[in-house]
């Protein structure tokens, strides 16, 4: 059931007004966000003005796009011209975006109402949103727990009904893992499917923007809205925007599903494992078949990721030097000093940790042993996915090994948090599309995410299978109509 379609119909039939919708969402934000802290900034006035303008146009009977009047949130590493983009970092605390990200332009052109910018781990580095320099977002399902990350603000904003949908970015699982932790749908498109222009880069070869929504249909609508070739992004695929929403069929008959044994072993929480297997068995009763298989390269995925992503990040974040924009420490007596102290004070610990790792692995004498070797492993992971897709139509895994953990659980153990990305990281390494959808919750009541992975540019297959799963598990995921 598409929440977006329901709202769009109501606007067009005159049952509902955009301004009423926005007022409700603002009230929800006002009521819940002091606890949840999903937003870094909310633009109530702009949202209301936009809503009123759209109401007038609906009244006049204008033909408007499907997204017109739909309240959305955008992760604070994606530019909206004239508004702050902080990346949840002190170094960009007062930075105003000089231009629109391509995706923001698409959403704006289609009439979506941006309610605000959401919290995240600083520069998208983290899996809990605890690395934000400004605030700690809480999981709406259990406020003692993290919402996941790094797109934790976007996931929480959707889960708490503050918005209908949100954009996040996913470098190693940053859309899918918070979607799993918060019990919503999170889609990471194929690398190159969605333009990265205007997304503040973390690791350029892995980053991809995607939607977080309540339903599979809504994920399809958002993907259709933001995808397509962008001449401003050289890594953008030369393909038109998707038309996945129109193509949705809840059908999985004849599909062969492979499940990597490496992601169904002892590292996975038993409750998560049971829920995933239950979901697979349910799909099997509707015409699909599944079996475990082995993808040995997955064992090296996390360590490989923590070479490639920091290497790219160390270079991508070099531009934050206090010279042209962003935080500049007042005490620098020389240029070198100014740059060093600005970065030293402007970046948080996790960001500095990764810059240092990345600088190290690219250094003369270490490049071959680390970065070059990591690229070879990355190719091996891609090849093993390719081989698997010769046999299977889809690969299914748990999205995360556990349910949402408690705030502060990994404070003294950053590496423990790194390992939690084992199921999502390989997908970014291979540039594939994947979706996390809620499956049967744990006995504790906490959400669990089922991850579906498809071959490159097969988002339609991914969404069709996800839609069937959603239909079968309707009682647990269907939300009340707004």
């Amino acid at each position, binding site marked *: 059931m598409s929440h977006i379609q329901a709202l769009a119909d109501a606007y067009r039939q005159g049952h509902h007004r955009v301004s009423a919708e926005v007022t409700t969402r603002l009230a929800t934000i006002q009521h819940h966000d002091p606890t949840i802290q999903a937003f870094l900034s909310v633009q109530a006035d702009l949202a209301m003005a936009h809503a009123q303008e759209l109401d007038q146009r609906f009244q006049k009977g204008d033909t408007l796009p499907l997204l017109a009047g739909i309240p959305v949130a955008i992760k604070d*590493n994606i530019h909206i011209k004239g508004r702050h983009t902080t990346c949840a970092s002190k170094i960009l605390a007062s930075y105003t975006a*000089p231009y629109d990200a391509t995706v923001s332009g698409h959403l704006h052109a289609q009439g979506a109402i941006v309610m605000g910018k959401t919290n995240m781990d600083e520069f998208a580095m983290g899996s809990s949103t605890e690395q934000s320099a400004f605030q700690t977002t809480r999981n709406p399902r259990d406020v003692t727990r993290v919402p996941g990350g790094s797109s934790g603000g976007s996931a929480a904003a959707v889960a708490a009904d503050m918005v209908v949908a949100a954009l996040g970015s996913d470098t190693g699982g940053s859309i899918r893992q918070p979607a799993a932790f918060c019990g919503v749908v999170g889609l990471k498109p194929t690398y190159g499917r969605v333009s990265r222009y205007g997304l503040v880069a973390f690791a350029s070869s892995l980053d991809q923007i995607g939607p977080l929504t309540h339903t599979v249909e809504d994920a399809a609508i958002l993907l259709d809205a933001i995808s397509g070739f962008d001449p401003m992004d050289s890594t953008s695929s030369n393909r038109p925007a998707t038309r996945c929403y129109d193509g949705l069929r809840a059908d999985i008959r004849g599909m062969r599903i492979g499940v990597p044994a490496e992601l169904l072993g002892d590292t996975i929480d038993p409750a998560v494992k049971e829920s995933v297997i239950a979901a697979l068995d349910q799909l099997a009763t509707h015409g699909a078949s599944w079996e475990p298989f082995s993808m040995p390269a997955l064992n090296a995925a996390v360590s490989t990721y923590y070479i490639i992503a920091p290497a*790219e990040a160390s270079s991508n974040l*070099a531009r934050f030097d206090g010279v042209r924009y962003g935080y500049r420490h007042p005490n620098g007596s020389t240029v070198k000093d100014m740059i060093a102290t600005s970065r030293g004070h402007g970046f948080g610990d996790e960001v500095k940790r990764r810059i240092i790792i990345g600088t190290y692995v690219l250094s003369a004498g270490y490049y071959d042993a680390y970065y070059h070797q990591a690229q070879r492993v990355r190719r091996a992971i891609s090849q093993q996915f390719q081989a698997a897709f010769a046999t299977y139509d889809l690969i299914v895994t748990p999205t995360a090994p556990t349910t949402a953990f408690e705030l502060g659980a990994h404070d003294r153990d950053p590496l423990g948090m790194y390992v939690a990305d084992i199921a999502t990281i390989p997908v970014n390494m291979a540039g594939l599309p994947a979706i996390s959808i809620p499956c049967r919750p744990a006995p504790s009541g906490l959400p669990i995410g089922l991850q579906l992975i498809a071959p490159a540019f097969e988002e339609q297959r991914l969404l069709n299978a996800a839609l069937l799963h959603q239909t079968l598990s309707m009682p647990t995921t269907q939300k009340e109509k707004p």
Partner: protein
Amino acid sequence: MVSPVIGIEIHAQLKTTTKLFCGCLTQFGDPPNTHVCPVCTGSPGALPVLNKQAVRYAIMAGLALNGRIQPVSVFARKNYFYPDLPKGYQISQYDRPIVLGGWVDIPSDGGLKRIGITRIHIEEDAGKLLHQGSDTIAGSSHSIVDLNRASTPLIEIVTEPDIRSASEARWVVERIRETLVHLGICDGNMEEGSLRADINVSIREDDTAPFGTRCEIKNVNSFRSIERAIHIEMSRQAALLAKGEAVIQQTRQYDEATQTTRTLRDKEESHDYRYFPDPDLTPLVIESSWIEAIKTALPEQAAHRRVRYKAVGLSDFETDVLLADPQACRYLDTVADAGIPHPIAAKWIVGDLNAHIKDRGHTFANSAVPPAYLVELLTAIMQGTLSGKLGKSVLSACFETGESPQQIIAKTGQTQVSDEGELSSMVGQICAQHPDVVAKVKAGKGGAIQFLMGQVMKETKGRANPDMVKGLLEAHLNTLNTPI
């Protein structure tokens, strides 16, 4: 006696309309930071898109310098912090450049010497720092960053260490500059920095000894300073070795004012640039059909032009002057195509025309005297209706007025008098007026005939055809049988 081993890295600014990775104009001399955008100022989230014209120019350079264009090359990031480098890295090419191999021929002992080229790669330029209160960052109160130049396209051409003297080094830079300028892809202005050379110098006992430790000299920004800087650096290294000290691998800065080189940084201080492939750019794939199309459309190359000019009889001096300016070459070729022999056209173009153009701050492309005017002028001289001397004053008048030689000649009546009847009667009159001089000539004082010729010239205001006057005078004098 020490013998140097020299290799050169040339950075040449490509004359593209827009920058290497964005649509900003590559225009210089405008107010600071007026040709900038999110991409070339390193705004977060901005991404590079490669300029195809820059790639075409790099391919042209590769072809003209006899290199192998690589079907796949890769852009890499060179990471270092400096306030004029907006992204904290320069996008360059590292282990997979666009061109490998090649050579350039330079004059040597009356023949040619072939200097190897290792590679050519594409990279972006940095911005410019304007230090306030000092020439260097160290002594300044503060510095201002101008990013108009940031991300303009460069090619770096790296030679093999095949160069064995300061004058060879100068020839290499001159010939490479000439090649790029004739391709129309670079201004080649060393003083303004559109062509910059870094020179690696080491010395050794003799030509068979192994290479010594090299130093890289930067800030060499004229042809003259190339030779000077190398001599100074050779002496410095020789003095060290004579004292029993070792040359340390360094980057050194040449100082034109003091005629010295000084340490910029030691090898230990040299940056670890942490090169890695730029993930924002896909590998650069070049189809062989594109290379062929570029090859077919290449303008005449400098080396070919040089051979051609020599073959039609131009002097080395004329050839060098002409080759320094491709517009002058095109001017010459246009004039020659209209039927004027190359040597005659070249003499005028290198001489009077060049002087006028320089004096007036014109160029050969926008000269007040276009090739068609020079053709008119030289045709008149070749037909004998205008003397060379008159031609010079007609040319001046053309520059003054912007009128064509025919218009000037018509206005001032400055055609040569070649009318036999007119000149013949004038000769008769002059001889009658100067019987004493005639007598001297008849007495065998041949030099006295010059006086009579001078009188005819005076009478015609210098317009008489001198050869004709001389013939007529001799004939007239023979008819006079003055008794002695």
